């Protein structure tokens, strides 16, 4: 194949296929080939636009409790107006693991909060504890929003560590306020098929497509697609040199997903701040109204 042909092939590979594989973090147990996948948690931005539409959620086989959105810089860095779901996980006293999801609930009682949805339960049991997690599972918080120490590698690879950690640092579902009506809320949501799975979301199709269109640049080929100049000049040598530089430069590209180490434009940061500030002010207002009502009671 000629050199021009290789260049064309390279560009074609970028445009089709390679760069669009879904990303996920797996919770496993065991090592090497013996490792069993306990749970797979998608990290493509579109997967955070709603909850995975599982049988448990369809059937109402879940409980919802109220948690506190952690006040750490990392948590706020992961906040986005279009992000519905945040990472969470739950473990029973027996070691049984439950898929859990945190849904941003806005400011309630002056504090930003989550609705923490735990699958496989019909009642918030005292012996089931939950934590919320950062997008890439590198930081963990109890449901009061307090950060807890976590060994990210063990968290992903050892069920025993997850059980020990959540047993020690997690918050019992019975110790926080239960939330009713989540199933009814789901009735107003829509279901979409995405390349990473089926989700239910309150967002409209345009917003889901927008999130789906984001290249998070987690994988190498996503980084190449997201950063390559793909410079083509009349001379094949400089074209080839440019492509080599693109391939090298892609190794240093930062991700653009929802995790706190990802980068975002300053205009997007400003937009996020403005929306969050509006939410905070609305929350503060309702908080004051509640206080005044409380005071005015005879």
């Amino acid at each position: 194949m000629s050199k021009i042909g290789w260049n064309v092939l390279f560009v074609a590979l970028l445009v089709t296929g390679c760069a669009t594989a879904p990303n996920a973090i797996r919770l496993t147990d065991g090592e090497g080939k013996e490792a069993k996948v306990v749970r797979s948690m998608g990290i493509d931005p579109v997967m955070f636009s709603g909850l995975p539409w599982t049988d448990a959620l369809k059937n109402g086989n879940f409980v919802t409790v109220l948690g506190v959105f952690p006040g750490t810089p990392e948590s706020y860095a992961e906040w986005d107006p279009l992000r519905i779901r945040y990472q969470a996980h739950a473990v029973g006293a027996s070691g049984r693991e439950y898929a859990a999801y945190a849904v941003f609930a806005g400011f309630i009682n002056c504090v930003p909060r989550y609705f923490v949805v735990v699958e496989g339960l019909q009642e918030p049991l005292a012996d089931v504890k939950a934590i919320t997690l950062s997008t890439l599972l590198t930081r963990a918080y109890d449901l009061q929003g307090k950060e807890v120490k976590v060994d990210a590698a063990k968290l992903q690879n050892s069920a025993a560590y997850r059980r020990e950690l959540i047993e020690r640092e997690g918050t019992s579902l019975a110790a926080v306020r239960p939330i009713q009506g989540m199933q009814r809320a789901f009735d107003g949501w829509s279901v979409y098929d995405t390349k990473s799975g089926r989700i239910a979301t309150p967002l409209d199709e345009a917003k889901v497509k927008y999130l789906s269109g984001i290249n998070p640049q987690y994988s190498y080929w996503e980084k190449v697609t997201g950063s390559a100049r793909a410079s083509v000049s009349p001379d094949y040598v400089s074209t080839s040199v440019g492509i080599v530089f693109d391939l090298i430069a892609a190794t240093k590209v930062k991700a653009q997903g929802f995790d706190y180490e990802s980068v975002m434009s300053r205009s997007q940061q400003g937009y996020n701040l403005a929306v969050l500030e509006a939410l905070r002010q609305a929350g503060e207002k309702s908080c004051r109204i509640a206080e005044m009502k409380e005071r005015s009671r005879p």
Partner: protein
Amino acid sequence: MTHPNEPGFGPDPTGSSSGDSTHTATLAERRRAVRSHKAKRDLKRLAWILLGLVALIAFLVFFAKRDDVEPLVSKPITPPAATQMAPEKVTPAEAKPAKAEPEAKPEGTYYTFRDGDRMFQLFGKSGALKVQQANPELIKDINRIRKGDTVLVPADVKIHKMPAFRIVDCSRTRKGFCEYRNPGGDKMCGVRSHEKALTSPQEYGLTAEQAATVMGDKGERVLLPSGTRLSALSFGHGHWQGPVVLMKDMLAHRKAVIGGKTYLEFDACCNLATMEVPPEPVPLEPEPIPEPPPAPVEEPPPVIPEPPQEPKEPEEGPPPVPPLSAFPVENELEWEAIVGAGVWNNGLANGKWWYGEGLLSVKLGDGYSLGIGPFYAAGKGESETSAYTWRESTGWGPQVGLKRNYRAEQTDEFGQTVLLPAGWQLKARFLSHDKVSGGNPESGYHNTQWGKKIGVYGEYFERKSLDWLYGVSGEIWHYYDGRIRSTWSGDKPQDRGSWNANVYAQYRINDDWQARGIAGVAHQNWDRLNYLNLTAEMRYRETLMFGPRLSLALNKPDTYRDIGRGDLTTLGAFVRLELGGIIRQKDREVREESVVFVGPTTDPVDEGAVAPAPMSASPEAEGGYLPVAYEAPPVGAEQAVVPATENPEVTSSWGPSSDSGP
């Protein structure tokens, strides 16, 4: 930097310094050869001139159209009324004092009140009374003015202007104009000692006795209304030196007056402040709580009792987070790469050039970075007066670069100070295998020259506004250790060193187009020729870059004594297409198309969906909370970890089966 499109980048195309057959030809023969190529040369020149004209017309067209394009930032953004610090002056002719008395030609100016305005602050004590007298209908109570009212300001009353808003990097300088919007956001209470702040030379610089006076006196409680100006403010983790305007009413204690400054301590946060004018005590009566609006839109959520907080253990900070990439410190490295290519032509020869360079840098802080990377340049050409052709290559060589990117203060079109990008860089290069080889198949002549080069490149740039960027650059190459192998024994190695210096300006025409003009001088050692280089570059959406380049000979060395200066004039052009943006757009479209709307969650058509559980199976279950049909495992009964395959709630469409991995 010098690109190898300089005229004579290769061996002297006239062959005057080599053993080429043309060297031995008579002058008349060379002239005949030149004349025989004249028609061809003129045709090429015409083509280049046409190309230049097209580029110029395109430039003018887009420049002219720019007036129709709404620029990104061409108008001042109207800030909220509360943040407009300069009082708005309206001339009598422009004012529309609908409520003002219809007097003919009043002496003075009109002023429209805004949020935060205070009569005494705006006009002073005596001025405020005069303004009230001049507008008795509008200002019945001097303490109550209405936003939006336009009043007549008598000619002898001065409007005290607030300082123009100055954009500074507040977090770094902590100087300049500031607005205090979030009292208590960074409290001094329990964080910092008042005594240290008061005696610190960086803050108030009081003596120990003076500090004791300030701290010892509880002072009178005063209300500082919104809009009050402070001259300095100390908070939990720092100190602000400069005008600070309160953006909300605050309570404080007037502690002492020292050196004409009143020292204050805020109730809410214990923060210290000074102000030039002593505050007037305001009777502090409990403010009536405003009635909440009737029927609030949403029922406020019930007060949720939080579970008791566990006693906090001493904080040790979050554990270190494992890096997400193969590089140990991801934030500390950056990579840049530049490639380019082009063609050139003059009366004696024509050719192509291309080059590439990269730099992997470590950030050193404060905008500095130091890096290493490769450099490569190459070209080829052919004489228009003989069959002589040549190829040349610098080979791959290392380069070391030191650069700094920072933000410099500039004054924008509204007279405001803004911080815009600026920077400089220095690169040192070493090419150990610079090679030129050429030959004439008709005469059998051939030569190859090797040598080494050391080069230094420097650049400085400043963005002067959102539209204009200026810069200077220069480069020098020193050539040494040259060797030659030639079929003519008289050949000697050429000195292939050179230097150039350029200035450039880049202009943003509109969101799609930018234009860059480059002018500079250059010198090449091998024929001692000096050039004036002029380059115009058009950039379309950072995808297509193209432009012409003109090199005019400033002198005519002896080597070219028999050749007209016009033949030394070189026209060149370059074009580069960057497909990155197109690829990313296509990738986004593919990703967006992967989303398929299935239906509402309640849609029974939903494949595999099961009808949601009844919401009101029993009165107790109203609200969707169904504490039924639950089989709680007895505590302690489950001891083994349940793998996903045995846990249908976990293995779902969200589970491993749906994950194909990158």
